[in-house]
């Protein structure tokens, strides 16, 4: 029931508008109408492709093919084509896996946790961020599967199927927990993303001019008519999916960190890993969201929808999670000393001043120093500057995983099993190629599906509020 209609404010009562300094910048600038939103966002998929789109797609799909070529070479020859060997048996492959799965976490944080916290600004960025999650998980999923050698046996130790000795998989192993965590994460992210897409697919269907497009969008829109009886169930399901995704996203990177923390290796065996990995994941994911969205908002003329305020808020999340990551680095060192375990302390000294000192200081300068620039408003609101910082965040978070994995492994307890890992060209090309896969998927997504959640952005405009004068309310007030 409309509260404003049933309890009109008596004319003797004057409600003062909030003071100017408390007024927030609107989420959609220039007071755009709700019709403008669907015209503008759907227009990105409907008109001719922008000039940069095809060249970008060609470059990224070439990189993707390079990765598939490398994978073919790896599978046909063996894991010896990579630089890893004893003692560093996990190197770039698992680094890349953790890097990509971490990137995905920002999408779920934006779509689920910010939804539960009623952060309305999420609506402008959640679709693209969720798509980014899916594509990052797709890139991540490749590495653990290909790193095992004899991949044709994968079916025996990934899903619960008895192996050739009739033994089931071991559910005490965090590596198996990881299989369940990552596949659940991929599936639930897809469901969540698709649920959000349904109303927008219906919009695309109703706007489609060609028969083929109308059929395809209509098929995937499942016959959505925007019925309020449907919205009622839809919103409940969306809320529940957000509620389910929140503990899921926190568990996924915790379980990824168990791959390391449950082992006995100095440098890995630390209880701080789960929260530290989750914070790092969100940190790197927001870095990637901004790396994608800052160019796109200019190229696709989305400045009114993804505003400077949105970018600024995301910079603040980077600052917060970056500070947690910096704290975790410090605390790791403190505990290595305070814990009194000489092997642990040796591993950490070796990390900062050993043969891999350069990777450690890359990590520190990118992850500890760069986010703190965002204390300054100028740094948060200058798009070029933010873009450059997010590139450093991406680089730093890749190095973090490299540092954790490689420096902890390369010096075993006996000096006779010390070694130095160097990547081969196959390592490098596979990793660079995974960016090709990621960008190819993202470019196809932004061309054929609405990149911004149309119905959700409409819902946060003042025109959408039946209690707001712009939404048609007769007794408008400051709700």
């Amino acid at each position, binding site marked *: *029931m409309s509260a404003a209609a049933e309890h009109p404010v008596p004319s003797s009562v004057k409600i003062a508008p909030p003071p100017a300094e408390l007024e927030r910048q609107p989420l959609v600038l220039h007071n755009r109408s*709700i019709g403008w939103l669907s015209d503008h966002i759907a227009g990105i998929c409907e008109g001719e492709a922008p000039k940069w789109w095809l060249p970008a797609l060609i470059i990224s799909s070439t990189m993707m093919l390079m990765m598939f070529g490398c994978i073919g070479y790896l599978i046909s020859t063996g894991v010896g084509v990579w630089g890893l060997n004893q003692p560093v048996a996990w190197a770039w492959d698992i680094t890349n896996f953790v890097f990509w799965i971490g990137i995905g976490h920002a999408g779920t944080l934006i779509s689920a946790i910010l939804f539960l916290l009623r952060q309305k600004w999420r609506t402008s960025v959640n679709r693209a961020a969720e798509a980014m999650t899916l594509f990052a998980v797709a890139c991540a999923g490749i590495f653990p599967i290909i790193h095992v050698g004899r991949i044709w046996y994968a079916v025996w130790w990934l899903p619960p199927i008895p192996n050739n000795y009739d033994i*089931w998989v*071991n559910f005490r192993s965090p590596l198996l*927990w990881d299989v369940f965590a990552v596949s659940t994460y991929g599936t639930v992210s897809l469901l969540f993303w698709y649920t959000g897409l349904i109303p927008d697919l219906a919009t695309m269907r109703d706007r489609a001019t060609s028969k083929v497009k109308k059929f395809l969008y209509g098929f995937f829109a499942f016959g959505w008519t925007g019925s309020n009886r449907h*919205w009622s169930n839809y919103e409940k*399901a969306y809320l529940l*999916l957000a509620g389910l995704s929140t503990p899921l996203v926190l568990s996924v990177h915790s379980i990824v960190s168990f791959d390391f923390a449950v082992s006995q290796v100095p440098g890995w065996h630390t209880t701080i890993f789960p929260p530290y990995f989750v914070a790092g994941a969100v940190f790197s994911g927001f870095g990637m969201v901004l790396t994608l969205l800052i160019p796109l908002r200019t190229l696709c003329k989305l400045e009114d929808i993804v505003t400077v305020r949105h970018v600024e808020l995301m910079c603040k999340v980077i600052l917060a999670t970056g500070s947690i990551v910096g704290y975790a680095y410090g605390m790791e060192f403190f505990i290595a000393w305070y814990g009194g375990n000489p092997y642990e302390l040796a591993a950490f000294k070796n990390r900062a001043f050993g043969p891999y000192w350069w990777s450690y200081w890359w990590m520190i300068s990118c992850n500890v120093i760069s986010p703190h620039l965002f204390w300054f408003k100028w740094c948060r609101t200058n798009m070029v500057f933010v873009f450059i910082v997010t590139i450093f965040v991406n680089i730093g978070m890749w190095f973090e995983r490299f540092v954790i994995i490689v420096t902890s492994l390369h010096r075993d307890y006996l000096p006779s099993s010390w070694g130095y890992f160097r990547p081969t060209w196959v390592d490098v090309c596979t990793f660079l190629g995974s960016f090709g896969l990621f960008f190819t998927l993202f470019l196809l997504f932004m061309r054929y599906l609405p990149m911004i959640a149309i119905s959700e952005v409409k819902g946060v405009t003042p025109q959408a509020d039946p209690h707001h004068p712009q939404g048609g309310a007769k007794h408008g007030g400051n709700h």
Partner: protein
Amino acid sequence: MNAHGLMAVFDTPADAMRAAEQVRDAGYSKWDVHTPFPVHGLDAAMGLPNSKVGWFTFLGGVTGYTTGMTMIWWMNAFDYKIVIGGKPMFSPFYSFPVSYELTILFASFGSLIGMFLLNRLPRLHHPLLKNRKFCQGATHDKFILVIETADPKFNDQETRRLLASAGSKHIEMVED
């Protein structure tokens, strides 16, 4: 030719909400408001009860947790016992992470399947989707109230008058 229902187009969510309140109070049962985004307060204005999707989620979650625990017990402690470090064959602790993930997985499927079942979706055809005016508005920037002819209280003139008095500028009979 059969008619599906009477469609009234509104320009603002507040107009549609006031109309919905009147239609609800007039005692109609087979009617709906089609909006491009969920309008808050419209559920109450239509007199809709709380959604039942949560029960499907709960059912999914319970199924997932039970499946996980049973599967792990059966595989590692019953069908082929694996002794690891002399620890108990089964414990709820080591089997928790996988069961937890399966709880979330099944509960998510439960929510989505529940939503589709309750909404009678997917469907590839709907009489409203053949109407040009409807398609140009309901998923774009109009708020469209539809009262079906199958409603026991439906009366062409009465209903048309009610919708006109609610302030709709465009009222049209939609073919089935």
